[in-house]
């Protein structure tokens, strides 16, 4: 399986995603330059975390106009696998590939910490190796991860089973306290209806090696690899 990691100006988790895919999981992995019009035959496109264009207008708002994003949109349209992590998730929403938007964290502070996530949807290309109700431990690092969508959209997401991860405590219970950034319905990650585009705020690439005390992030990458025929 071939992975393509998109590099925008201001991306800063591009090398981290590359490292896990290439050096840890030994997958064929390439960087995709945002000004190109070429996905280099990638089977899965990763939009990494960071501050694309400094996040100066809104998180992810300018990156969506990068030349390569035309190809990414078409690729997703054709059913190609796209994973947006943190800033990548924000870009996917700005592009309209996923519904909703991010507001500032409820306490108006950047948050970098490990959180617990309850896996809500098993069997997707990104969660094939997990089971519903399972609790993962992954780090977050963001200022704007407070998920928002208008009530109709939210209802649609919930009804359609598109919520993949929610912030929870270590036992998988939802609470105000565990919902560190104030996201609606504790939403940490969602998938599109077709099941080929996933966005999540936590960073699976930061928890994919034993030295970091959690390897739960591998579940997502290894599910993708497993999904590939």
């Amino acid at each position, binding site marked *: 399986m071939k992975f393509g990691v998109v590099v925008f100006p201001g991306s800063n988790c591009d090398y981290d995603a590359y490292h896990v895919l290439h050096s840890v999981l030994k997958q064929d992995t390439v960087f995709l330059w945002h000004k190109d019009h070429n996905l280099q035959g990638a089977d899965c496109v990763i939009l990494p975390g960071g501050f694309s264009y400094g996040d100066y*207008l*809104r998180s992810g*708002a*300018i990156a969506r*106009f990068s030349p390569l994003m035309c190809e990414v949109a078409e690729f997703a349209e054709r059913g190609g696998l796209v994973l947006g992590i943190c800033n990548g998730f924000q870009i996917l*929403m*700005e592009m309209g590939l996923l*519904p*909703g*938007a991010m*507001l*500032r964290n*409820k*306490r*108006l502070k950047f948050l970098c910490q490990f959180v617990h996530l309850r896996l809500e949807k098993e069997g997707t290309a990104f969660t094939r190796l997990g089971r519903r109700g399972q609790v993962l431990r992954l780090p977050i690092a963001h200022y704007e991860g407070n998920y*928002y*969508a*208008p009530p109709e959209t939210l209802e649609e997401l919930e009804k359609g089973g598109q919520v993949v991860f929610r912030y929870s405590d270590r036992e998988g219970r939802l609470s105000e306290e565990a919902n560190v950034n*104030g996201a609606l319905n504790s939403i940490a990650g969602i998938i599109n209806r077709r099941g080929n585009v996933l966005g999540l705020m936590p960073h699976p690439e930061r928890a994919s090696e034993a030295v970091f005390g959690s390897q739960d992030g591998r579940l997502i990458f290894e599910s993708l690899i497993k999904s590939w025929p």
Partner: protein
Amino acid sequence: MKVRILVSFKDSVLDPQGQTVMNALHTLGYGFVKNARQGKVFELEVEGLSREQAEAAIPELADKVLVNPIIEKFSWQVLET
């Protein structure tokens, strides 16, 4: 022509920054402030557009780039011609 575009959260969206500002104003004794919303301002210097063309072009670019219509709304005005 100079154009000013004001972007703010929709009324239905919680604005924690505005809330914080309001709380601070209350603490400082300005209890008469009943609500505060925070937003952003863009000032664009525009060239070669007639007033009519601007009427069409400014909302278009605001909608497409400057504003995230899911959470934000905007208004605009011509500052100088």
